[in-house]
Structure formats: C-alpha cells, structure tokens
C-alpha cells in the first residue's frame, strides 16, 4: 500500500461535496427557486411583522394607556382624599376587577405594604415613570406583568400594572407559528427548487442535447417542439431556424469548395501541362513562347475567377454599404446599353430599350453597373444572331424593376433556382466561355441592396428581373449577409492558416 493511499478517499469526498453544491447553485432552476423562496420569505416576514405590530403592539399600547389613566385617577384620589381615600379606591378597584389582571401596590416610605393585591414589591423596580415587564407572583400564581410606579407626596409609592401573561402567550403562539411557517417555507422552497429545476432541465435537455450533437458535427438534429406554443417552443423554433441556415451555409461552402477545386484546378492543370510539355518538347523558341502565352492566359482566367469570388464575398459581407448614395439608374442603363450595343451590333443582335426618364434610388453605382452589365452580357452571349435583347425598367413607390430579356435557349425551370449559385453552369452554358459566377454576383449585389434577382421564362429565352428597393435595406438581408460574412471570414482565416502551414 502506498503512503498516499489512505488520504485519497478523504480528499476526493471533501473535494466533491463543495463542487456538487456549487453545481447545484449553478443550476438556473435552483437559482430561480431560491430567489422565489427568498421573495416569499421576505414577504412572509413582513406580513408577520405587521401582524405582530397590529395585534401585540396595539394591545401593549392599550395596556399602557389603561395603566396611565388608572394611575392618574388614583393620584387625583390621593390628592383630594389623602391616603385613606386612595386605599379605599384601591380596594374597590381590586374587587371590581373581573378579569383579575389589574395589579396595584401601595407602600409607605419604609417600603411596607399598605394596600394592593401584590404581596411584596417586585425586585428590580427602582425608577419611577419607567415601564417594567417582570414576572410576578400573585396569590400563588406566577405570571408576567407590565407595570410602572409613581412617587406620591409624603414618600408613598404606588405601583400600577396589568397582568400580561395572556399576551405573552399570544406572542409565543405567534412566534411558534412564524417559525413553523418559515420551516414550511424552506421545505416548500427546496421542493419548488427541485421541481422547477426538473422542469427547466426537461425543457432544456432536448435543446442542449441537440446543440451538442450539432457541435459534434451532426447537422441533421433538430430541437423537438413540445407543442404548447410557449417560450420554450419559441426558442426551439428559433434554434431550428438557425440550424437550417447553418446547414444551408455549410452546404454552400462545401459546394463552393468543390467547385473551386474543379474550376480552378482544371485551368491550373492545363497551364501546368502546357508549360511542362513545352519545357520538354518545344523545338523552336516560337513554340515555347506560344505555350507560355497560352499558360499565362489560363492563369489569367484563374485570377479572374478568384477576383469574382472575392468580389462576391466582399459584396455579401456588406463591406461596400458605405458607398451607397443617391443615384439615377437611367444614366447607368443608358451608358451600359450604349457600351454593349457595339458588341451586340457586331453579332447582329438588336437591343431594345425602354425606361422612364429617371429612376432615382439609393445604392452603389459601381455595383449596380456591374450587375446590369453581367445580365446584359449574358443576354447578348446567349442570343442567337438576328434576335433581340430587351432592356426595360419600371418604377413604383417602393421598387425599381430592371428587366433584361433575351430570345436564347433560356434556363430550364428545374435549373433556375440553382442558376444563381456560385459556379453553377447550365448544360448549354458549359461550352461557352465564362466562370459561372456572373449570376451569383448579380444575386449578391441584389441582396446587398435588399432586393432580389428573379429568373423567368421569356418563351423563348430568359428574362432576368432585378428588383431593387428604392430605399431602406431589408434588415433580414443584413442579418443574412452578416452570417454569411462570418462564414466566409472563418473560411478565409482557415485557408490562410493552411496556406501558411503549407509554406
């Protein structure tokens, strides 16, 4: 047996006990119950105190008054009728006293009893005009009395009092009752604490179990609703909404990383292959130069994808809200229509334009330019020759709607919801040049402005409708942007750390 072994059980038990207590106190249910018991106890004590004040206090005050009046009367008798009259009155009063709780004692200057129903002067009473509460013995019965004495002319002393043993009893009764009530309260409080704690635990158990599972990586779990429609249900619903959002974001991030892996790896692989091939097989400088040029082109494409991705992330992070200003979209549309008209004309595509003379709104001009340019570029890119692209805009009190319609192949209905995802490319678009980020960027820009990008069937072709609120931003969009920005930032720091580790 090792020397430390005997100490072990003791130290563990003594260590566990306070920990357990602290844990119990850390329980919100117990805390609530203790608080409840405290409030309950304080109010009970206040109630008892007021009860005591209004019963015993009142009785005490009444007794004081009675004694005082009694003493005044007796003093008057002494003054008018002398000692004999006082003794007579005292005897009369004693005889008349039905409750037998009046106490009198008249003594001469030497302390000898002259009259009264007390056999001897109680001990400790030596100052006149002061209230005393002392035990007395009267006709063989011990009891409590409240009394005071008065100095009478000629050295006589008169003690006037009342038997208060009934009141003492009442007081004891009240005190006992209070103690019992307190005990019951402590017991009920503890019981309540346990019950409330149990209720809390049951209500929160599911939530903590679910969130713990989520934290471990199981994103399929959801908090069960009790169906009472109470605060806990509300909490459960909020948490479930949040989990849905997180799941969606996680999926988005996963898809994006897959897409990045594919869309960036392909051109990098091509560039690499070209360079390697040229390094070992090029026979003339011309060939070598050509291969290097093509590889540079591929790398430029990679850079373009990167920049588009970063820009989407930047926009979704809401970083450019600061650039919001009063702008007129008409000028933006006019410029862009003119800018792209040259390309369209070259491909024999006519551009129809139709918009009101002014379209004032609050937004970021650069970004809206880019959004409309992306839509317009898509429309021109997918339009067959000798067809038309129509740009039109409408405005009501709340929104501006910009519509860009082409007569190209369009996007099948089933694919439309996915068309704004990063790197999504329709079957038909795969063969055309592009990054698959254009519509994602437009959607991000619309979202930053609190608007939305709608894709509709133009029969034939695609009609992209950019709905932009003319003013205030949708607070929900801000929240979603914030959430997304956090994810992006986390992913960025992660990849940054990975890159550093790699280097």
């Amino acid at each position: 047996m090792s020397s430390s072994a005997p100490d072990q059980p003791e130290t563990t038990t003594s260590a566990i006990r306070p920990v357990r207590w602290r844990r119990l106190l850390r329980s919100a249910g117990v805390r609530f119950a203790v608080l409840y018991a405290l409030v309950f106890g304080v109010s009970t004590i206040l109630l008892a105190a007021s009860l005591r004040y209004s019963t015993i206090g009142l009785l005490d005050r009444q007794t004081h008054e009675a004694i005082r009046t009694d003493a005044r009367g007796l003093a008057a008798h002494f003054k008018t009728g002398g000692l004999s009259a006082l003794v007579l009155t005292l005897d009369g009063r004693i005889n008349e006293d039905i409750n037998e709780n009046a106490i009198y004692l008249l003594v001469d200057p030497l302390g000898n009893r002259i009259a009264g129903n007390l056999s001897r002067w109680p001990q400790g009473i030596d100052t006149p005009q002061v209230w005393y509460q002392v035990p007395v013995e009267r006709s063989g019965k011990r009891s409590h009395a409240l009394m005071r004495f008065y100095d009478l002319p000629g050295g006589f002393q008169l003690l006037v009092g009342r038997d208060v043993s009934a009141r003492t009893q009442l007081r004891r009764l009240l005190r006992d009752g209070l103690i019992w009530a307190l005990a019951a309260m402590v017991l009920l409080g503890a019981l309540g604490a346990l019950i409330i704690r149990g209720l809390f635990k049951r209500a929160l158990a599911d939530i903590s179990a679910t969130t713990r599972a989520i934290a471990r990586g199981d994103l399929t779990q959801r908090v069960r609703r009790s169906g009472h429609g109470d605060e806990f249900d509300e909490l459960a619903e909020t948490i479930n909404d949040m989990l849905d959002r997180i799941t969606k974001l996680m999926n988005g991030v996963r898809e994006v990383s897959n897409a990045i892996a594919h869309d960036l790896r392909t051109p990098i692989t091509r560039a690499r292959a070209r360079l390697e091939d040229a390094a070992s097989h090029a026979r003339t400088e011309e060939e070598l130069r050509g291969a290097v040029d093509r590889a540079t082109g591929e790398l430029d494409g990679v850079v373009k994808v990167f920049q588009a991705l970063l820009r989407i992330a930047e926009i979704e992070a809401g970083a450019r809200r600061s650039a919001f200003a009063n702008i007129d979209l008409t000028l933006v549309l006019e410029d862009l229509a003119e800018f792209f008209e040259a390309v369209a004309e070259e491909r024999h595509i006519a551009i129809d334009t139709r918009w009101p003379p002014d379209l004032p709104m609050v937004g970021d001009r650069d970004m809206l330019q880019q959004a409309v340019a992306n839509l317009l570029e898509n429309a021109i890119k997918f339009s067959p020759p000798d067809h038309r692209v129509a740009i039109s805009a409408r405005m009501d009190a709340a929104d501006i709607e910009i519509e860009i319609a082409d007569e190209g192949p369009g996007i099948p209905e089933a694919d439309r919801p996915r068309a704004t995802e990063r790197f999504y490319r329709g079957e038909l678009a795969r063969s055309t040049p592009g990054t698959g980020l254009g519509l994602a960027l437009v959607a991000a820009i619309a979202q930053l402005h609190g608007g939305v990008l709608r894709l509709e069937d133009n029969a034939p072709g695609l009609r992209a409708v950019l709905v932009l609120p003319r003013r205030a931003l949708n607070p929900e969009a801000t929240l979603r942007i914030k959430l997304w920005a956090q994810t992006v930032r986390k992913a960025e720091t992660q990849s940054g750390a990975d890159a550093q580790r790699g280097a």
Partner: protein
Amino acid sequence: MRILVVEDDKDVAGFVVKGLREAGHTVEHADNGRDGLFMAASENFDAIILDRMLPGGIDGLRLLETLRAQDNATPVMFLSALGQVDDRVKGLKAGGDDYLTKPFAFAELLARVEAMSRRGEGEGPTTRLGVGDLEMDLLSRGVKRAGQKIDLQPREFRLLEYLMRHAGQVVTRTMLLEGVWDYHFDPQTNVIDVHISRLRQKIDKPFEAPLLHTVRNAGYMLRVEEP
C-alpha cells in the same frame, strides 16, 4: 524615367525591375519600408511603385503619407495584393495616384506607370490635342484628320481624347474602361476591342497611314508610325 520600386518580394521585384530597365527606365529598388522612405525622400524620382505590405516597420501607406507630408508630389502607384475596394480607396486617399492589384500583367504595370508620370506634365487647360495629322479641338469638340472633318459619337470622342492625351503610350483595356467609361469591372466579352475597331473605322480607315495601333498582349497605342 527614374523609377523607385519598393517591394519586398524578391521575385516580383526582380521581374518589375528587369522589365522596367528593358523598357528603358532607370530603376532603383528598396526591399523594405524604411529604406524606401529614405530613398524616396532624399532623391528625385519620376515615379514610385509601392507595395503596401512591407517589412521594416513602415508600410506602404505610412511611407506615402510621410512623403506627402513633406510636400513630395512624386507620382506613386500602389502595387498590392490587397485588392478590395476599401483597400484601393484607402490607398488613393493616402495620396496614391494609381492602384494595381497583384497578380498583374507587366504590360499593364508599365502602361500605367508611364501614363501616371506623364499625367503631371502639361495638365494645364489644353484646348487642342494633336497626333500626326489628327487634330482635336476640345472646345468646339471637333476632330479633323488631314484637314478632313470626322464625325464622332460623344463616347467615341472621349475614347479618342483619352488615347490622344496618352499618345505614344500603351493604353490597356482596363485603363480605357476606367478612364473613358468609369467602369470598375471586367467585361467577359471583347467590348473594348469592338469600340476601338469602330473608332479605327472612322479615323484610320480612309487614310493611308494608321495611327491607332494594337499592342499585342497589352492594349493600344496612338502614334505616328515611323517610316
């Protein structure tokens, strides 16, 4: 031109210095902020190419701010991996004249540096521009070549004006997008080329010697072809 390159990455700095020397410029190089500031403040340069993130306790922004506080007006171009709009705004607000994001094409860098350093000269109230027999009157907004009037659309006029102001220099597509249209995005299609070819139709086609030249892998240049 005498150009100072402040860049800590050896490969990038070597690439830039070599390229600028080949283009006929005199180049000095500093690989940290303190040396860069010392050289920029004590010698005369026609242009400075400045990285933003630099070792040596002084980053590009501080360097530029210190320089500008000393009333040094040397044109400065930022060359930085920080490419977000806010970063660019910060750089230009600190007194930068241009901002190029890494990765970059050397042709773009060269064109921008040359355009930037030329900007300072004769920026006075010019009313007439001329390249060879091509003339532009900025007041009456008239364009003539060899005495023959040429009709231009307003945007074509601005495009030609930009090219004429940078005559003899390479002008990249991005510079045209920014300078003529004030667009800060990268169109996927060859819109700029189309606009240039339309302009070429009007100013070059009917005449013998072309003035508007395409510079492979870089952009365009307006100049008189030497015989």
